[in-house]
């Protein structure tokens, strides 16, 4: 029972972690909290559904097209809406991303209606693996593996690649980064594209684990926020760790204490964390200058 709950918690937790990572990447570079992250992932998952179901493409091609679409969507939103905003306030930025959220949700609702669908995923959700008595469904197993690999790739990318270094430089000081010859505007577009792409992977797994319908990302978005707060909004490893912890804790709470109140755990985590340690588990403490 305990092992089972932990494993399924890990699978969901890694999905949260990916979504939280996508959010933290944007938050770190441009100080924008992206409320549209969930809806961007949802639209991308629907595109995957269209490629797989309507055009009957094979899974790898459909996946590649979906990721391409997700990246283009992220870059487009940044280019069309965020770039023209002059001296935006924090509230203004939040309103802009909330506006995206509503636009994307409206488009999805208009195109696909309120029906619940199943994303045709190549990994069956009913077959299981058996690891010495621990029964793990195939979908959970592969979710954990893929998300873990993706998180490791992301860390390597940020740490060692030239583009990753440029992104970190932009995060630290935009002006100096520009003086050093980094095209910061292009970095912002790229950040949004990368973030949207990571979100799309998470969205596809969440669609495979649950169902595919327009409001499907509402709850995971909240969980991703909770994960990011838990790990520290400005720390990439923090977001990954926070997501995993949240997924497991939430599942244990659902299994042992109360299933209906499972989704309140995220709120409790946010409030507790913000009261005890506002900068998160792994975030650096931030002192406000007057």
């Amino acid at each position, binding site marked *: 029972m305990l092992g089972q709950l932990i494993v399924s918690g890990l699978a969901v937790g890694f999905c949260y972690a990916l979504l939280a990572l996508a959010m933290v990447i944007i938050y770190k570079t441009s100080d924008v909290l992206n409320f549209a992250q969930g809806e961007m992932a949802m639209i991308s998952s629907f595109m995957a559904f269209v490629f797989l179901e309507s055009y009957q493409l094979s899974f790898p091609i459909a996946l590649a097209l979906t990721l391409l679409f997700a990246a283009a969507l992220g870059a487009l939103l940044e280019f069309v*809406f965020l770039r023209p905003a002059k001296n935006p306030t924090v*509230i203004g930025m939040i*309103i*802009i991303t909330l506006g995206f959220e*509503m636009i994307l949700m409206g488009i999805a609702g208009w*195109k696909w209606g309120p029906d619940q669908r199943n994303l045709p995923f190549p990994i069956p959700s009913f077959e299981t693996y058996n690891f010495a008595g621990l029964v793990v469904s195939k979908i959970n197993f592969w979710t954990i593996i893929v998300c873990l690999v993706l998180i490791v790739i992301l860390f390597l990318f940020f740490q060692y690649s030239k583009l990753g270094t440029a992104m970190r430089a932009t995060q630290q000081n935009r002006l100096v980064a520009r003086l050093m010859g980094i095209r910061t505007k292009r970095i912002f577009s790229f950040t949004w594209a990368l973030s949207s792409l990571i979100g799309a992977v998470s969205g596809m797994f969440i669609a495979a684990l649950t169902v595919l319908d327009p409001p499907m990302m509402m709850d995971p978005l909240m969980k991703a926020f909770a994960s990011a707060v838990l790990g520290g909004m400005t720390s990439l490893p923090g977001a990954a760790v926070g997501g995993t912890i949240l997924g497991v804790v939430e599942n244990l709470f659902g299994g042992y204490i109360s299933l209906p109140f499972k989704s309140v755990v995220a*709120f409790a985590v*946010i409030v507790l964390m*913000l009261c005890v340690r506002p900068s998160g588990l792994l975030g650096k403490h931030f002192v406000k200058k007057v």
Partner: protein
Amino acid sequence: MRGKNAEGGCVDIKRSYYEDIELFKSKTILVWSVILLAVLLILPWFIAKTHFLGMSVYLLNLIIIHCIVAIGLNILVGYTGQISLGHAGFFAIGAFTTVMFVGQMGLPLFIALPLGALISAGAGFILGLPALRLEGPYLAIATMGFGMAVTTIIKHMEFFGGRMGLQAPKLYLFGTAMKDIHFYYVICAVGVILTIAAVKLFKTKVGRAFIAIRDSDVAAETMGVNLNYYKTLSFAVSAFYTGVAGGLYAFILGFINPEGFHIIMSITFLAMVVIGGVGSIMGSIAGAILMTYLDVKLQAIQDIPGIGALLVHFSEQYMSMGGISNVAIIVYGLIMVLIILFEPLGIFGIWIRTKKYWKTYPF
């Protein structure tokens, strides 16, 4: 009192403290206020007879309720500089507690409404406690979580009717059941009182403390403003307004269900404030009127002449007919984004610019 400057244009000069705190700044405003009240009195009869602009008395009630919410949220967002994405939670608390007080305990509405609003204000106070340590995006997340937690909790409490929701009891006035048009006068009276209270609030010590916190919380604290007290108070006042509106909403809707108070509702409340103009009571009212009207009208977009037929054709060709009401959400989102990009002060900003233009007309 208005003085004339050398060029002959009007400038607002305040010569004493009492002039600053008076409700009607000039005779003109007093006259227009009286005219506005008279219009509010006869408006439901006019609407019920002519259906001007496709309005109904129900829509009128909804608009006034949203005005109350927008004013309450503006006290928090526009005047204290906090942000909330959880006002649907307070709205739900107000609605459910008021219905419970009237339905289960048999209290009359004029007692149940303030009681429900006070419970909502209590919830606002509790949410205000973690909000003391948060700002900007963190606060947005925490309040959004609060809104979602409230609906989840209500959904799983049998006491509140669970997933099925609650039926609002029929109200009687002198032995006859109240209709929309009777409710209109109740709602309108509450709305006018709360609007005047909000305008007056910012002439008192409390209101000025809110504004000081918005402009700079560090400076406000240095000047002796108790941040903890005033920030939680701001949340409580804002929640009180929203709770009153929620209680009224339950009765005009007749039936409330926790699913109805979702995150999109909180976002639309915030949108009303931002579109109307952050930090302006009149702006909130304008934003609430515009967005509620648009929302209700766009829900049935296929009935609008001209665009409707075109959209139906487009939906049949490329989209789905079942989801055509989602056009409302798209328009809503677009307005939100465009107003931030091009007119950050919202409708109030446009009004200020027009006023300035005409005051100094040829120049």
